[in-house]
């Protein structure tokens, strides 16, 4: 890990230390577990968006895709709205639907050549529309024991969902490090035209990256459903910015070609520690939003100091 990559982990340690010093409640084991649990969904979503950002694209489809997946899974596993009881298969279908929506973003990007900012915003609207239609006015509540247990049962002090998040980070890291998809995504962010010169057709990889990202968001939607025991259209609200923020805070640039899953994971922890710590320390809710915004800006500033020039592209 180069010096340049060391900024965010150092910031994480510093912020953690400051909160631990300020608040006894913060430094308890229970609270640290709490932080990991709270970070789980964001971590999974960020895994997906990291690949997109690595390519130099952006993805705003998260809320729509997560909403669609949340409602879908809630209606397919055991629930109070219908007699479905598909269990894991239902979860699989929800994730597949999410992947299909992600694929749609990617296709619109490469076929219509619309910037990802617009295609993903469009797909988000479509996802929310689909979710609202399926929602049909009655909250589907999950009664599926397995899905419910994911949020409740613990292993080594952490909720199953948190372990799922760890697994996703691991998978994401393997993809980034050992798969053609991951390496090409990275290369697209570095020098797309060189890939084309070398005879690599980049379009399928772009579509594949958006598809994979969609799958991660879909899993995120499932996880939210497990936490809430219900399928919400709003399951993904705010996760678009939160995930981009986490990735950027962790050192993934908005111009592509830098950063990666581990960077993003650090970013997720940073953001989560921050919002947990502010409450623990007792910052008034009036101020929390502003304070959090400022700290994030400062953290990013600290992180980009060693790489100023390159970070300027979305200026």
């Amino acid at each position: 890990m180069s010096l340049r990559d060391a900024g965010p982990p150092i910031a994480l340690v510093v912020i953690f230390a400051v909160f631990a010093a300020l608040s006894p409640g913060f430094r308890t084991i229970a609270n640290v577990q709490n932080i990991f649990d709270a970070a789980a969904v964001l971590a999974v979503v960020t895994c997906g968006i990291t690949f997109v950002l690595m390519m130099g694209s952006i993805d705003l489809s998260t809320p729509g895709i997560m909403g669609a997946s949340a409602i879908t899974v809630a209606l397919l596993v055991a629930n109070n709205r219908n007699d479905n009881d598909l269990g894991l298969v239902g979860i699989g279908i929800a994730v597949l639907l999410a992947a299909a929506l992600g694929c749609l973003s990617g296709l619109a990007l490469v076929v219509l050549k619309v910037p990802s900012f617009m295609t993903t915003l469009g797909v988000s609207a479509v996802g929310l529309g689909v979710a609202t239609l399926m929602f049909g006015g009655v909250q589907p509540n999950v009664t599926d024991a397995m899905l419910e247990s994911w949020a409740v049962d613990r292993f080594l002090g952490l909720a199953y969902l948190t372990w799922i998040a760890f697994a996703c980070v691991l998978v994401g890291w393997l993809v980034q490090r050992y798969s053609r998809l991951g390496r090409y995504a990275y290369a697209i962010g570095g020098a797309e035209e060189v890939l084309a010169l070398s005879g690599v057709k980049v379009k399928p990889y772009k579509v594949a990256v958006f598809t994979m990202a969609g799958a991660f968001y879909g899993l995120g939607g499932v996880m939210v459903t497990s936490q809430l025991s219900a399928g919400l259209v709003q399951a993904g609200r705010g996760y678009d910015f939160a995930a981009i923020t986490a990735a950027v805070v962790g050192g993934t640039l908005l111009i592509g070609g830098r950063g990666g899953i581990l960077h993003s994971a650090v970013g997720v922890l940073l953001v989560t520690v921050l919002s947990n710590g502010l409450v623990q320390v007792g910052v008034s809710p009036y101020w929390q939003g502003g304070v959090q915004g400022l700290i994030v800006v400062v953290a990013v500033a600290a992180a980009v100091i060693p790489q100023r020039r390159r970070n300027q592209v979305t200026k």
Partner: protein
Amino acid sequence: MTLDPRSAPDAGPNALEVRGLVKHYPGVKALDGVDLVVRRNEVLGLAGENGAGKSTLLKALVGLVKPDAGEIWVRGEKVELKSVVDAANHGIGMVFQEQSLVPNLTAAENIVLGSEGAGVRRGVYRWDTMRKMAQEQLDKIGSSIDPLARTDTLSFADRQMVEIAKVLRIEERTDHPPVIILDEPTSVLESKEIETLFTQVRRLREFASVVFVSHRLDEVLDVCDRVSVLRSGRSVGEVPTEERPRPSSTR
């Protein structure tokens, strides 16, 4: 495979032949009916003043420029080169004047990019194999860089080596020796590096034809078997280096 009666030499068709190539740019005739012959396993120098059309000609040979008229023959076969990949499939590869590597990938990945072969199995990287494949290419040109170094951490000269190693991989695609084109490869190198490069170009001749472009006459004379001269988009002569008097230069 059509044998071309006009060029048929003793040892089968030429590696590459260009006939009457024309390329217009808005306001400029960059190529005005160029002819060029590249024999097998020779190092051909391409000389000519700035703007003579050298780069344009070479780009046509690797499918980056679509000529308005004229023909390209590869080993006696008339071809149409629509892309770099096309050219590579015909065994023609080029090291560009500006570098074309992915900066955030490793040297090994850049060398095998687009033809990873056994380096990637079902989409999964086998770093060991890939390193070996790259090492093989680097060995050919006598470079000792670490194949797993990130390209943007390498010196300019080393990156040049990576480019050459990458181009050399096109021999994997054909069953005959490739044509390797170097467009002003020395302009950014130091003299020690230039020496290394020359050694490598001479070594290349054993398993490839090489087209070598440079402004520096001494270079061209040093390393080439023949020199073709271009002026204003036309061929104005083709001289074996022995017959050519050593002209004075600005040195």
